[in-house]
């Protein structure tokens, strides 16, 4: 009996080892990949930033028959990101897509190390670690987004739809997330002024400090919902999983971020989107038309409503407002597009508003 058991266990151990070996071999069985995406800290299934960019890469690569792959840094550090960029280039990458401001320093180093490789940096501009020198080489193209416009639209829509107690759950307080949040506050304030109920509208505002879902965030959100919060704008990678889990238990609502998250949960009434997928596709198209070099290399594009790169999803399945209509939305969006409606993109001080904002933490 004992011998049999030891035999079985020994076999199980060997099997485990073998299984993990074959899996690793499969991954390593690679030729070269021309188009590479390096993730920041999250993964390409974060239903948010990395995923949006990755979808742009896959869509363009598939349409044009280009080999593509993604790489994930071993840890959250600039050194690891530089190393991973190096790995991608060793494996034949000619174009490296880097989603996230976290790459700013890594690209600052890599743009000189690999002058023949083209970099696309989303949400940031290359600079030194101490922010003293900003330099974008001609092989780098940067894209920034007007997140404040997307956040504004979400906040405006929620208050116009009759929600009075709102919440903002940010990930890390990085510029893009802060712009979303302050835009959200401004939009809610504008709608409340229009409806004349500024006194009744209140917003709880909190950064979780991470882009990953945890039980602590879920518990905190459960507390907000119990206190009366009706809808939470969950803004940061995977934290929406914590928000929707709490919302489902409480029967309350969530607003998604970056990409249309309506299919993720019935509790998501809308999503403050930025056109990650779209802009990656367009940028790659320009690159390949220009024989593999950025036509506007060394510059930064700031995309917003004017370029149709921010907005709420208006598809029927994703539009879950009750009284706020697509027509009302289009009106606001158009005035934003024309430039008649301006939204502050300051991230250093909180916007001055007449609704009550409870900044926690």
């Amino acid at each position: 009996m004992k011998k049999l058991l030891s035999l079985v266990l020994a076999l199980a151990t060997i099997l485990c080892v073998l299984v993990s070996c074959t899996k690793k071999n499969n991954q390593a069985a690679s030729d070269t990949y021309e188009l590479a995406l390096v993730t920041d800290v999250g993964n390409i299934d974060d239903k948010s930033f990395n995923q949006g960019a990755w979808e742009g890469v896959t869509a363009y690569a598939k349409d044009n028959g280009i080999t593509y792959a993604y790489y994930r840094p071993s840890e959250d550090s600039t050194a690891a990101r530089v190393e991973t960029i190096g790995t991608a280039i060793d494996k034949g990458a000619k174009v490296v897509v880097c989603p996230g401001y976290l790459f700013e320093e890594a690209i600052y180093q890599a743009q000189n190390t690999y002058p023949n490789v083209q970099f696309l940096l989303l949400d940031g501009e290359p600079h030194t670690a101490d922010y003293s020198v900003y330099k974008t080489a001609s092989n780098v193209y940067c894209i920034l987004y007007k997140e404040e416009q997307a956040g504004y639209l979400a906040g405006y829509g929620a208050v116009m739809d009759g929600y009075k107690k709102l919440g903002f759950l940010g990930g890390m307080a990085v510029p893009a997330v802060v712009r979303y949040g302050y835009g959200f506050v401004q939009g809610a304030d504008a709608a409340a002024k229009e409806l004349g109920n500024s006194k009744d509208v209140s917003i709880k505002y909190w950064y979780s400090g991470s882009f990953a879902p945890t039980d602590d965030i879920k518990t905190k959100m459960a507390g907000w919902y119990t206190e009366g919060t009706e809808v939470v704008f969950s803004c940061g990678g995977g934290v929406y999983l914590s928000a929707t889990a709490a919302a489902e238990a409480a029967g309350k609502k969530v607003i998604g971020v970056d990409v249309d998250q309506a299919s993720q949960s019935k509790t998501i009434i809308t999503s403050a989107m930025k056109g990650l997928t779209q802009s990656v596709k367009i940028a790659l198209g320009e690159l390949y038309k220009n024989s593999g070099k950025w036509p506007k290399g060394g510059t930064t594009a700031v995309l917003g409503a004017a370029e149709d790169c921010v907005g709420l999803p208006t598809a029927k399945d994703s539009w879950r407002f009750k009284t706020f209509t697509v027509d009302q939305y289009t009106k606001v969006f158009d005035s934003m597009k024309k430039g008649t409606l301006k939204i502050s993109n300051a991230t250093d001080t909180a916007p001055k508003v007449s609704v009550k904002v409870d900044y926690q933490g």
Partner: protein
Amino acid sequence: MMILSDVISQTIIFAVPLLLVALGGMFSERSGIINIALEGIMIVGALFGCLALQLFNGADQLCTIAPQMAVLIAILISALSGAVFALLLAFASINLKADQTIGGTALNMLAPAFAIVLTWSIQGQGQTTILIPTWTRITEDALGLKSTGGFFGNLIFKSFYITTPIAFLILILAIIVLYKTKFGLRLRSCGEHPQAADSVGINVYRMRYAGVFISGVLGGIGGLAYTIAAGSGFQSGVAGYGFLALAVMIFGNWNPIRILGAALFFALFKIIGSYSYSIPFLPKFTGIKNADYIYLMLPYIVTMIVLALTSKKSRAPKAEGIPYDKGAR
């Protein structure tokens, strides 16, 4: 009042995995094997349990006919997979007489890596999250009750999973098995003085295998219970709950009832940390930046203090951590 009912129900839901896993650790240590691998066991249990839940998820699947039946089967699967994983520890530390701490640590490192490999091979590369279906929660509708939403409705149904009553049953069972059965007495004797136990004809190896096996079963269930309670999907980890459970077990002095108390205590302080802004009478420390971290640190600080004060009375099983050698007298 609603906040109070929230705090109570959340405390219970997070005490459940701690209780289950700490009870598991208790069985193992009472038989003389230090089980550091609880974290890894939880991960493996949660992994297979969540995969089973995914399997039952779908329009024509078991979840539409009998959702709680599907959850029960998932619990059985996680118990079984946790037990098999724990047997690796048993094999290393009982048959090979390896150092138990190192063996357990190795398993803790193996588990998340194994989970990622398996999740990727099933869901596709890069898909690291196994989502938890919403039907795992027992709602008022499912029981045919009207949704009341009042204090008690909130207390009982806001986060009610079948794992809660199961944990309660297991606690009672653990007390009976450990203190009222022949098996329990023999198990305890193997942890206190295995040579003496052997001299009266108890098979020490078999008892220790049994202890580790039970800890695997409970650890596996605890892993699934945690993942369901956290509700954010399985991401190849259980956020250190296995190690927390170890602390709960020590704090609970290897005694089931005290472990229950310790688990509730831990969970309560954890929830207070998360709810610090919503509980009106708590000081807000507005002068300090990121003051909510003070509350998040509370369970650990309080445990250190309590452990320092009570450690004199702490009674660990005498022979734990020492491989049993028949020849040594």
